[in-house]
């Protein structure tokens, strides 16, 4: 793991970093990632990432919850142990809507969130690679993987400084 070398540009302002991302990318330099203390809207688009689609897992887990809840209520009161409650049908659908709704929300919320943790590799025992410790405080850190770029180190450094980085560091991981 010690052979990976990154150039880390430190920026002060969200607009400067946004601008720098576009300029760096137009020079044909691949950016590893930009680390920010808060969500900067449009930065993912500037970096060329696809639009996040967390609605897909939310929907899939939600529909699973709907089906499970429907099966649970239908099977228990309709098939396994039918009970005569006030002379109503053994399975009156409208009175089961609250249960179906709650379980839909429960599974959608937890399913989506855990999918998110899984996709982002987040977990209690994860040891993160921190390019600059200030990126969770007040700085924006742009990391560029040197092994994946053909542009020379000194050129990348020069570009970063030119586009507004207040510091340019080398980080070996």
């Amino acid at each position, binding site marked *: 793991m010690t052979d990976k070398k990154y150039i880390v540009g430190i920026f002060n302002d969200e607009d400067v970093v946004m601008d720098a991302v576009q300029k760096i990318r137009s020079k044909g330099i691949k950016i590893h990632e930009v*680390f920010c*203390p808060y969500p900067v809207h449009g930065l993912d688009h500037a970096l060329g990432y696809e639009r996040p689609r*967390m609605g897909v897992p939310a929907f899939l887990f939600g529909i699973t919850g709907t089906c499970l809840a429907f099966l649970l209520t239908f099977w228990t009161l309709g098939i396994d142990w039918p009970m005569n409650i006030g002379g109503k049908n053994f399975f*009156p659908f409208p009175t089961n809507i609250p249960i179906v709704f709650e379980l839909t929300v429960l599974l959608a919320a937890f399913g*989506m969130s855990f999918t998110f943790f899984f*996709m*982002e590799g987040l977990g209690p025992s994860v040891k993160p690679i921190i390019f600059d410790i200030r990126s*969770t405080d*007040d700085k924006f850190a742009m990391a560029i993987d040197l092994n994946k770029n053909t542009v020379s180190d000194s050129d990348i450094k020069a570009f970063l400084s030119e586009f507004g980085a207040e510091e340019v560091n080398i980080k070996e991981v």
Partner: protein
Amino acid sequence: MSVVSPIREHLVTGGKTYHDVTEDICRHVEAKPTKEWKIAFAISVLVLMYGGGWVLWTWWEGLGVWGLNKTVGWAWDITNFVWWVGIGHAGTLISAILLLFRQKWRTSINRAAEAMTIFAVLCAASFILMHMGRPWLAYWALPLPNTFGSLWVNFNSPLVWDVFAISTYFSVSCLFWFIGLIPDLATIRDRATGVRKTIYGALSLGWTGGAKTWARYEDVSLILAGLSTPLVLSVHTIVSFDFATSVIPGWHTTIFPPYFVAGAIFSGFAMVQNLMLVTRVVYKLEDYITLEHISLMNKIITLTGSIVGVAYITEFFIAAYSGVEYEKYAFINRATGPLWWSYFGMMFCNVMSPQVFWFKKLRENIVVSFVIAVVVNIGMWFERFVIIVTSLHRDYIPSSWTYFTPRMGDIGDYIFSFGFFFTCFFLFSKFLPVINMAEVKSVLKSSSEKKSNH
């Protein structure tokens, strides 16, 4: 891109930089607890222990320690339950509904409001357990196979809906709160050393704040808000069904779901107002929780207070219009019967008192805001008491008419919930950031007061 109305006041004052935000909010998590905190925490724990004694006594002795009688079989226990659940709703409202409406002022208060939601729902759940009488059989409320001792639960029952609604609401609120905390926990991790670094490191799940993670994170937050909004409305709707699906005059009214939801938001905002007014002074966060925030909260309190006022009057109209004499009597008895004082307390505290906020001076006055918020919470407790006890105490047979007087068991169990709530809140305010740093930083550039203004 978002557009900020020029007439809005600044949401963050004092010309804060990003680093100032981190410093101001992490300070309380990192510093040794202050003397004030220790005293307040000690008092809460003592209250918790005193109330806890009464809870144990309730479980040991049975529900006979309460003032219930054969006519009024449901009183303070369910009043307290509905009251706490209602208070809890503000947290989700602030973080989910205001997120969907893109209200930036939520950023300073959402964290504490969500924490308050969780603790309030736990307090509410404790009353469910208590009024079961035999809490060790609480699992009978879950859909477990018949071999566990009970039949399958009756899914047509609003009490079973309650079990599902409250437990889903609690779990999803915890999740929403935790996801909101992750970036801030990473900030604390990166400032901490030793054991604290390990603990906050584990809690922050290895968060680094990459642009891709943030993009997905925002998507997750938005969808969670979209899921929580109907959830929070469903929870109090289902709580109101506990009464509305019965055939008791005064309870089976179709206006209950919207009226309960409005009341829940009303009391919850009042509780958030109380907590934030204290927190901003104790933690010196006046630059983050500004008079603008207090004023906006008061506006919502006035609006929701007026909505419940309309609901109270509508109930009377519908009772009169129904032509059912029992229904009419339930409402006349409510306002003029032996428990008239609780009805008056409700009308005065909930409908009249928040009207003072039509005046800007009073709306931005901290003392007035605090007092009215306390009054509103008292009023909302009376509202539930009025609905529950006044509808029950004079039933169809005049020979069984009674009055309700609480006994020490009722009072002790209620005291327990306060001890529990404040113990949890003080622990939260010491060990976790009370303001969402990442979100405040994200509105800093557009909505903060610049240094040059001074």
